[in-house]
């Protein structure tokens, strides 16, 4: 095909470490992302001990920390709790899910699904991975700073964040690397999709996953620059004595604070949420794309309303830029502003309803196979529905007065990102694992992983709504300090047990992942009888992806076409 495709022997380092092959970079992203997800989850399991048994020493590991300042006697201090909370949020969002969903799945699948030999800018692609890597290392190193890592939540609201210890500076520097990485990566995905589609692959013949990645990349490109600027401003406020976000006349710990003054802390919130709301869709859209591919494949029929879904996702992407201030109803917003943001928030629920409706109608008239990827993909649907529905009372400013900053919010967005997005990502891993490794994953271990995770994860997040109704604030180190919180303390124990069960269930996945690599059943090129282009390459795909240049003759989901011998027509039938 191109000279790109010719092989010259590359050393181990060039092939597996500093590779510029999109597939290797995709795998690097995915593995790094999974490791961070696991780490972020471990932080949460420790926090869940404190929440279930406030003030009691941690089991097993308490003795390691006996003399540390952060865990005197093995009991978690508020500082440490806040650090873990902030790092859990940051790591899960910026180091776990986005790298896995956009970096991992996007990198690996987009060129394959559009019939391209690689990304448009392979070296930029490597640069974006390494920028992510550095950002991640900076975040991890912040655990060793005096005073520990950032403690002001993943939202880093000033003035708290500006007064916080050195960890916050590391957080900001890490974020600048992560944002840069996302910008480079998403520009690459956009250009690749626009420029490198195979002959015959018009926009409306693209698999839905490619559309989802396309819109996601636009969200990243357009929303991240304001946050990058804001992060630099906050860094300046911390180290250079500026006061973009610091008002005059602060008195901290009884002492007047010397700052230039005249800034406004709410400015940060606008800049932050202008990114962070689209970021929610950055988390969810690739997941939705994955689920769509798997559902079309396993119902053995074309997607219902493919074009409607594409328009919905475009509209969703656009709307996600004008809802940000629904996170800020409690900052003193007037009626006009609040009416605007309540309205746009209700409007954004419409494309979400359409998307999920199309997916469920796709089931109608199908011949549904319940394999592992499909089980995770199906579980995504009700979980995402719960997450989406519980967003409505939060989007109405009036009911938000009560629910804002309670555990109801934590329950709401975790339903979207944990049993929602994470399940979709697991679905994707089970689905494409054979393509990437040439081996199938073990079914029994997979089913154990699925069923235990499904029950446990609901056991964690469902009680959060109860806590929210009871009025328990989020980010509380001692959850039963208030009278209204004591009434629901029992749920904390239940949630924590569920969280540890969930953690244990992941062992099935980890074992399966490595065991199958060695001993899994060999996979054919197209084990799921799928139609999209990535299955038309050898397994695993070689450098340069395709043996001959692919030409596309039909839409992405030609399943069960009447009068054909097989119930699917792959893109390349030669």
């Amino acid at each position, binding site marked *: 095909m191109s000279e790109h495709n010719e092989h010259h022997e590359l050393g181990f380092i060039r092939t597996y470490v500093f590779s510029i092959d999109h597939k290797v970079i995709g795998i690097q992203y995915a593995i790094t992302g999974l490791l961070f997800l696991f780490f972020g989850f471990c932080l949460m399991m420790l926090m869940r001990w404190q929440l279930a048994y406030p003030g009691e020493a941690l089991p097993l590991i308490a003795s390691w920390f006996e003399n540390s300042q952060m865990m005197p006697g093995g009991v978690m201090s508020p500082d440490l709790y806040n650090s873990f909370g902030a790092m859990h949020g940051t790591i899960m969002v910026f180091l776990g899910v986005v790298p896995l969903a956009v970096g991992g799945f996007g990198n690996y699948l987009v060129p394959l699904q559009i019939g391209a030999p690689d990304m448009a800018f392979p070296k930029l692609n490597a640069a974006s991975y390494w920028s992510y890597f550095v950002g991640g290392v900076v975040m991890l190193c912040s655990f060793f700073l005096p005073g520990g890592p950032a403690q002001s939540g993943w939202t880093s609201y000033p003035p708290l964040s500006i007064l916080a210890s050195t960890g916050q500076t590391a957080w900001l520097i890490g974020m600048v690397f992560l944002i840069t990485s996302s910008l480079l990566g998403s520009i690459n995905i956009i250009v690749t999709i626009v420029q490198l589609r195979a002959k015959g692959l018009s926009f409306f013949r693209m698999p839905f996953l490619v559309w989802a990645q396309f819109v996601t990349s636009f969200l990243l490109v357009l929303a991240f620059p304001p946050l990058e600027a804001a992060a630099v401003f906050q860094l300046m406020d911390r180290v250079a004595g500026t006061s973009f976000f610091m008002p005059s006349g602060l008195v901290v710990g009884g002492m007047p604070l010397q700052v230039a003054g005249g800034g406004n802390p709410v400015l940060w919130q606008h800049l932050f949420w202008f990114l962070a709301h689209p970021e929610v869709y950055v988390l969810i859209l690739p997941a939705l794309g994955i689920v769509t591919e798997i559902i079309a494949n396993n119902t053995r029929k074309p997607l219902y309303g493919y074009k409607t879904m594409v328009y919905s996702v475009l509209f969703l992407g656009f709307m996600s830029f004008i809802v940000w201030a629904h996170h800020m109803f409690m900052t003193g917003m007037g009626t006009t502003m609040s*009416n605007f943001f309540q309205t746009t928030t209700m409007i954004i629920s419409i494309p979400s309803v359409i998307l999920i409706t199309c997916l469920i109608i796709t089931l109608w008239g199908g011949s549904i196979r319940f394999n592992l990827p499909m089980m995770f993909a199906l579980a995504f649907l009700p979980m995402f529905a719960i997450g989406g529905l519980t967003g409505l009372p939060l989007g109405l*400013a*009036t009911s938000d007065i009560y629910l804002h900053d309670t555990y109801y919010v934590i329950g709401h967005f975790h339903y979207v990102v944990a049993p929602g997005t994470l399940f979709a990502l697991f679905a994707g891993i089970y689905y494409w694992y054979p393509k990437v490794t040439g081996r199938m994953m073990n079914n029994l271990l997979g089913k154990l992983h699925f069923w235990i995770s499904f029950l446990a994860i609901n056991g964690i997040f469902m009680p959060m709504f109860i806590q929210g109704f009871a009025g328990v604030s989020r980010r*509380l180190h001692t959850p039963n300090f208030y009278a209204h919180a004591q009434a629901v303390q029992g749920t904390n124990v239940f949630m924590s047990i569920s969280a540890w069960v969930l953690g244990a269930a992941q062992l099935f996945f980890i074992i399966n992942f490595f065991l199958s690599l060695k001993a899994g059943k060999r996979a054919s090129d197209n084990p799921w009888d799928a139609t999209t282009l990535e299955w038309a390459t050898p397994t695993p795909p070689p450098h340069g992806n395709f043996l001959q240049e692919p030409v596309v003759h039909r839409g992405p989901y030609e399943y069960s076409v009447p009068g054909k011998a097989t119930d699917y027509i792959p893109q390349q039938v030669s």
Partner: protein
Amino acid sequence: MDSPSIYGWWLPPDVSAHGAIIDQIILIMHVFMVALFVGWGLFFVYCLVRFRQRPGHKARHEIPHSKLPKFLEIGVVIFEAFILVGLSYPAWSKLRTAFPPRESATNIRIVAQQFGWNIHYPGKDGVFGRTDPKLVSDSNTIGLDLNDPNAKDDITTLGQLHFPVDKPVIANLTSKDVIHSLFIPVLRVKHDAIPGMNVPIWWEAKQTGQFEIACAQLCGNGHTTMRGFVSIDTPEEYAAWMAEKEKELEPAPQ
């Protein structure tokens, strides 16, 4: 103090004049959400069972278009529009703009700090004294300028919020250091206290009793314990409490 028994697994009792609409929206929305989810879920399970792969069953390439989903979606939109325009807009306007006249209300300032709530009463003259951050000290936590004649009769408490029942309260909310959020669950009151900003909020209580103030915004390592106490008094109790506080002001000279 508080009897924990008034709290449970649903919203705490509402003792405010304005909270009914908040509770109503929360309830209506949840009934709607549960109905939608259950209907959706039944359809989902039905599809999974009826269209499972089995011998002799084939997928259909095309399925007939049904108008039902469209009608359902339009129904959902109309319902959301109603909640939004019919309930949420007016309730929010009432809460945020329809302030009662200052003369008919109990006027206070609330100055949040790490980790407590300073309540500032204007005293007999009804005028708040000047404050200045430079004057803040351990005994003068809000930096009241005692040279200002208006400040002489001002009363401040740490975390003791008293006000009479059945009379609106207007509270000017601010913070000395970081962002906090005033949250009084039983009053359905929540608002951020932001340094550099001074935001008025108001409420009215319909029942007397003793309750807690919580902080809803992460504000540092004492966030959890940033508790305050609310006492909703009868007018007599309130007057008595005020008189006592005023007495405390007097024997200052030594």
